[in-house]
């Protein structure tokens, strides 16, 4: 007898529908699993057998063939355990085919018959075409995020079978995705003492989506500033929240209690991260990398010059396109990766390089250190700021600065203005649109002309400065014309922070 159970598997951050076909016929007892399963999926046979027996259900002494269609798609992970078990029960007549009609199944089985959590429930449920889906209890909230299907949760295989047979009522539906509400407390900007320029740069970065590079000696507060950036970004809404949730789910990471990810993510990979960990990919399972987990949020690279240069340069294409295409022999996957890049670096290995001549590094060491940050990558940073150690008096008793709440309100307003121009943020303004949305006051034009004339600014740099100046004007609540002050500040926040070779 044949049974077909709908389910899904994961490819990158997308779910793909899988039909689990179970065929039971007379013949020599045996179990064959076909349809391109990966090693973990292939082990389903042993888990399903033990789970059925421990749940008091029979294991057929017949010839069993399980096919996972479509055959070309590689099925990863243990999520197909449950559909295989249910299919087997239907095929052997333990369950009525009508009882499972229109219902999809997802979940890993334990040898004792319990249902376990699997990664990527959000994208997999999102891909299903069914009226209802049965998932392990732990994943119920995650599955409910999608909202399109009726979600039924089950804790054990025996309970599930009883419900399907109609012996027991289904347990209560899991709670609907609760209201959009930030859960975890975020560090507040008011904690930052002094650092007026660092704070300004942070605000501009959040408002305009401009990538930010902080350079300064150890202990100057680079990391402290960077950690306060996601709090300034507006919360994720609608599709954005769903995409962020999907990526997080696909990476097998736990979701916030509400299910939906509404806080802009903040990812801070260590500088030992490999290029696959950062970009995505992997052999067993196309996993989203850190840059995709930071999608719509902040990717913070602390000690940026300690990252291998190859890893850093791999960021250039996603920075430009907002998407990273990972191509492997088996599959090619596009991961969303539109993130705000914040880099922090010391000016040299000892961290003390500066105009005072206090640095203890050799010339060669300093050059080697700075070569890690390639010119094209540095060019992606619209804001490059020197952070100096705050004054002792400020640290101990200075007045607290503006709080995150106050600044975030200004940021939200500035972003609203950017949206009225048809872009998500000012960093995305096309160059052709700049004359229209960011016309320059005569004094501002004179400043830029001087910079171009002395060779301090290139043509591309000019556009970047104008975008940043637009953001500064938006934050200041200025009119459509970009003023001298806005342009000057934009220039000042684009310092040549990485020491270039200084000929004597």
């Amino acid at each position: 007898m044949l049974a077909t159970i709908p389910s899904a598997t994961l490819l990158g951050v997308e779910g793909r529908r899988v039909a689990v076909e179970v065929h039971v016929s007379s013949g020599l007892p045996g179990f064959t699993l076909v349809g391109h399963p990966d090693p973990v999926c292939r082990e389903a046979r042993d888990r399903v057998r033990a789970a059925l027996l421990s749940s008091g259900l029979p294991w057929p002494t017949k010839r069993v063939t399980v096919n996972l269609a479509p055959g070309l798609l590689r099925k990863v992970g243990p999520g197909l355990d449950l559909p295989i078990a249910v299919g087997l029960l239907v095929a052997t007549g333990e369950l009525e085919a009508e009882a499972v009609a229109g219902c999809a199944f997802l979940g890993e089985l334990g040898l004792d018959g319990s249902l376990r959590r699997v990664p990527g429930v959000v994208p997999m449920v999102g891909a299903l075409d069914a009226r209802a889906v049965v998932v392990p209890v732990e994943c119920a909230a995650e599955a409910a995020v999608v909202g399109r299907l009726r979600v039924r949760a089950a804790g054990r295989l025996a309970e599930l079978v009883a419900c399907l047979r109609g012996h027991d009522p289904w347990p209560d539906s899991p709670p609907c995705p609760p209201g959009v509400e930030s859960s975890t407390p975020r560090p507040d900007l008011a904690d930052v003492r002094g650092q007026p320029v660092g704070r300004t740069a942070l605000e501009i970065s959040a408002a305009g989506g401009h990538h930010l590079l902080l350079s300064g000696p150890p202990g100057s507060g680079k990391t402290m500033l960077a950690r306060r950036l996601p709090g300034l970004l507006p919360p994720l809404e609608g599709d954005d929240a769903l995409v962020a949730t999907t990526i997080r789910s696909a990476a097998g990471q736990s979701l916030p209690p509400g299910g939906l990810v509404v806080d802009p993510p903040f990812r801070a990979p260590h500088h030992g991260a490999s290029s696959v960990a950062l970009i995505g990919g992997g052999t067993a399972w196309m996993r989203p990398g850190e840059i995709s987990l930071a999608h719509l949020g902040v990717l913070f690279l602390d000690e940026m010059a300690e990252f291998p240069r190859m890893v850093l340069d791999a960021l250039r294409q996603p920075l430009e396109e907002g998407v990273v295409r990972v191509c492997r022999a088996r599959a090619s996957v596009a991961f969303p990766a539109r993130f705000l890049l914040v880099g922090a670096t010391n000016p040299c290995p000892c961290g003390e390089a500066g105009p005072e001549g206090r640095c203890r590094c050799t010339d060669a060491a300093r050059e080697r250190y700075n070569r890690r940050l390639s010119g094209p990558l540095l060019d992606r940073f619209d804001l490059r700021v020197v952070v100096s150690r705050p004054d002792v008096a400020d640290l101990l008793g200075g007045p607290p600065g503006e709080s995150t709440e106050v600044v975030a309100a200004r940021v939200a307003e500035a972003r609203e203005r950017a949206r009225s121009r048809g872009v998500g943020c000012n960093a995305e303004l096309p160059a052709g649109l700049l004359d229209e949305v960011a016309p320059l006051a005569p004094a501002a034009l004179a400043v830029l002309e001087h910079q171009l004339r002395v060779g301090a600014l290139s043509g591309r740099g000019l556009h970047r400065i104008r975008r940043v100046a637009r953001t500064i004007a938006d934050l200041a609540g200025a009119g459509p014309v970009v003023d001298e002050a806005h342009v000057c500040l934009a220039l000042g926040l684009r310092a040549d922070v990485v020491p270039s070779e200084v000929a004597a």
Partner: protein
Amino acid sequence: MGSEGPPGLPVPGRPKAVGAASSAASPAIVHDAPSPGLPTEAFVAALAGLPAMGHRRLVAILRRWSPEEAWRRAVEGEADDDPCLAARWCAAAGEVDVDGLWRSHLRAGVGLLAFGRPGYPGVLADDHQPPGVLFHRGDPAALDGRRVGIVGTRRCTRYGREVAHELGRDLSASGVRVVSGLAAGVDGAAHAGALAAGGAPPIAVVGSGVDVVYPRRNSQLWADVAAAGLLLSEAPLGAAPEAWRFPVRNRVIAALSEVVVVVESHAHGGSRYTVEAAAERSRTVMAVPGSIRSPASAYTNALLADGCAPARDATDVLVALGLVTAGPGAGEPRPEQRPSPGPVEESVLDALGWDPASLDGLVLRTGRTPPEVMVALSHLERDGLVASRQGWWERLANG
């Protein structure tokens, strides 16, 4: 550059094996009886390339024998009383092709001044630690005239670089030869200044071979100094810039200078070797005063505290040379030609002072907003009153 030569010729400073040399299509080489046409200098160059040949040993040998005789003894293992060293030299000398070595010098346009030979500078011949040989590019006649050494740290501040440049420029324009080490930082700035003035020819004493440019980014400066003045080195062609060569080099700078000016130096910088060598030779040492907060001026300020004369400008140095008598005009500032700053700019300039400051620091010191400060800085930068480097703002001196 040695590797560019035709096959069969030895790479300078790296003696080639006999077998390899004779197997190639080069003229037959006779080691024991060199061709009679070779100048005496060729043997000095060969001697200088022997292992463990410092300036003391080379001078001792040249005092004892003629270079030809010394080379013959080196080949035969009789060049030193210490049999170990003599054997080492013998083994090394056996593999040197003097003819090829000399031709590589000629090809590179490198001449040499040998101790005890005509053309050797008298000021060095009288020294108690004279160099046995000085390889040179450029015209040795550049040594004739008044000479001032300008030395300092490689890790200089903008202040140090500017002062070195001004001193080099003004001294050269006054007909004084600037002697320095052509290193990064102060040395290079002094030479760049001397070249900019186009006055007296600059003299550089370098630590590596004259064909090994170090630091490499100064290659244009090396070429310019060699073209306009004189490039000297005790090290044979191809010698790498090893750390020990620099203090040794500094004594030559001190010996060649009548006055040594230290522009900027850290507490334990290499300039103290130059200053010690100058003191041993009773040369006048002058120091450029710096901020007491600047680590790059720690040693120069200490020198001033010890009683060195301050060098505030070229006039101070010229007075020390006896070329100008200190009069009322000495040390007077040049007329200010830059536009005078507005009130906001003035306050930013006051807050900046003469030490580099970050934008953060200026915002805190002036109590103004970042945009206001940036507008003022951009005006000041346009007018040439301040400059920014790597995110730091510095006030520019007049001149």
